[in-house]
């Protein structure tokens, strides 16, 4: 029986300690990162796993573990910024070894998670992530993608979208903010071939839950890219994380899909899409861009980009149907 909302509410009720992340963490009001964690850990717990989490340096890490406090009730390790995947490779391997040596019971069902931001994933931690996937560690790497270095005050990352205003790629008189495209991290990960990779959005909990469940069942490394609005630096209202996520999906900005062993599947195909401008407009981070005289032209190019990417995704789905790499 698939994980559902009422089932989760009955299971966890007011016991956040059973989920793994509890009250008193100091993330900004309305931050999506703890929601990503909550969704992921609830599914693992509900399905009988013992989560063990590894974090990359970032908002989620600093705000949940200010010594002597911790908001975690599951085993937690933070090592550094760029090495969460390598660190959890070590933890996961140690668990296998300790079972082999008879130190830990063989039937202990751990679920190893990494939670890392986009800086720790697209940029500084990319090598470590690649190594972890290539070696086949059974770890679920969850990217909470807030599209910039938000912990240090909104600097540009490889995940920052074109035209977004950041402190290191500000929209200026000459340069219209970040001019490059956002890296396609799912494609990079999927290129490792034996991997389960997917995008999720908190605005579609059922799709999110089922992808976590698939990750838990996949006999190898998994990568989940979770769209994770940053209310502070996206300049959106505190309560807007979900509505912006919804718009991201409805405008093709954040398509929901998965790649399992090379097989693409678009898990949500809205009948109708909204124009991309509806995603950009409510966010203050795009306001400087949209105030430029050439805004229409730039938005038009971005619209064409998301349209083509969507078409490409459908083509890949068609082409890879029933043709797993292994």
């Amino acid at each position, binding site marked *: 029986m698939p994980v559902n909302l009422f089932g989760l509410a009955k299971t966890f009720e007011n016991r956040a300690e059973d989920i793994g992340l509890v009250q008193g963490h100091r993330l900004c009001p309305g931050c999506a990162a703890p929601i990503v964690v909550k969704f992921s850990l609830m599914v693992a717990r509900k399905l009988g796993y013992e989560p063990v989490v590894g974090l990359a340096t970032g908002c989620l890490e600093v705000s949940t573990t200010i010594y002597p406090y911790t908001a975690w009730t599951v085993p937690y390790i933070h090592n*550094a910024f760029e090495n969460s995947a390598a660190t959890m490779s070590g*933890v996961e391997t*140690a668990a296998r070894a300790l079972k082999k040596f008879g130190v830990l019971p063989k039937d202990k069902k751990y679920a190893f998670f990494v939670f890392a931001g986009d800086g720790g994933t697209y940029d500084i931690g990319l090598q470590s992530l690649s190594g972890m996937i290539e070696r086949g560690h059974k770890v679920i790497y969850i990217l909470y993608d807030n599209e910039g270095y938000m912990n240090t005050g909104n600097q540009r990352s490889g995940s920052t979208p074109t035209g977004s205003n950041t402190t290191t790629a500000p929209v200026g008189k000459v340069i219209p903010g970040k001019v490059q495209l956002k890296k396609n991290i799912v494609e990079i990960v999927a290129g490792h071939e034996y991997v389960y990779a997917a995008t999720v959005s908190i605005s579609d909990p059922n799709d999110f839950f089922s992808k976590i469940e698939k990750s838990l069942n996949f006999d190898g490394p998994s990568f989940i890219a979770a769209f994770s609005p940053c209310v502070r630096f996206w300049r959106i209202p505190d309560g807007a994380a979900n509505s912006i996520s919804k718009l991201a999906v409805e405008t093709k900005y954040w398509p929901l899909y998965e790649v399992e062993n090379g097989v693409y599947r678009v898990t949500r195909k809205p009948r109708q899409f909204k124009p991309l401008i509806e995603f950009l407009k409510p966010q203050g981070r795009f306001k400087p861009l949209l105030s430029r005289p050439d805004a229409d032209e730039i938005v038009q190019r971005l619209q064409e980009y998301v349209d083509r990417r969507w078409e490409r995704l459908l083509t890949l789905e068609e082409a890879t149907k029933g043709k797993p790499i292994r």
Partner: protein
Amino acid sequence: MNNIDLKKARAVTGAEAVANAMRQIEPHVVAAYPITPQTPIVEYFAKFVSDGVVRTEMIPVESEHSAMSAVVGAAATGARAMTATSANGLALMHEVVYIAASSRLPIVMPVVNRALSGPINIHCDHSDAMAERDSGWVQFYAESNQEAYDLTILSLKLAEDESVRLPVMVSLDGFILSHGVEPVEFLPDEVVKEFIGEPKMIYPLLDTEHPVTYGPLDLYDYYFEHKRQQVEAMENAKKVFPKVAEEFYKVSGRKYDFVEPYKLDDAEYVMVALGSTNSTIKYVVDWMREEGFKVGALKVWMFRPFPKAQIQKYLNGRKGVVVLDRSASFGAEAPLYEAVKSALYNVAIRPQMGSYVYGLGGRDILPEHIRKAFEDALSGNLIADEQRYLGLRE
């Protein structure tokens, strides 16, 4: 120097000796990345894993940074975790080397000493390990392959002691030891197993009944207190090491200490050094003794924590002390010299002191070089604030 029974010994390289120490330790996890001249250690060990000689899970990581990161993750679970590296590999690990120490994880890492880039060089000097001397790791330097083997085993027990809980580097000179063949007496596997015992797990990460948080954000309220604990652990390492060395002596018949005096009883002039060069120094001491010179040597086995008291004990009242460094500290005194000189600030009768840097990038150190430094001392020509060089073209 400990005598080796040649009938019981096998002729092996330092790399093979260390790899066999690792085989006997049989860590739960080894994560390693190949780098010259550490490579043969990883190769030997990978073969042990591949042949099922050990149950160890090996992680063939994609960089040294990830090697140390994975070993930190594994060690946090309470598993025994090891790696080995050299030079740029150690430098790449640097960030996580500190984290391993501050997380108080008893990781043992053989470091096959090699000159740090740049320019790139693959041969021996101590610039790699010296760059980590303030990282919070215990550091040993081996003179021979036998010592590299023994110290690897002994270090594990020291690292895992409840009052210590610190990672340990075992330095062995690149190529000279790692690739040089010497007789090594191996302990029987079961003796090593019994000597190291079962790992004592403190705050094991995988204990879901008692979940712990490793690596919190530690600001001005407690960071200082955690650093003070590390200082204390180093002091404890000094207390525990003689006990561990004694236990090791009981099972092996080989003695280890903070330092090793050589013909020091009546020596007026003493040379201090780390690593394999001590063998050459001993040869020169013998040579000069035959000619009637009262010279001796003091080998430093443990460089961190620095054995100040032993240095003072052996060097107080000597006429001259010559310190050899296989690395430079640009703009300051060479690391071993600086430490020895500082230790002698308080002694009753301060010797004359001289600093000699030698062997950078694998430059040979010859008996004549060592004799020259001794002769400087004998002729009263030591200047404490002058750094001299052996084997350098001026």
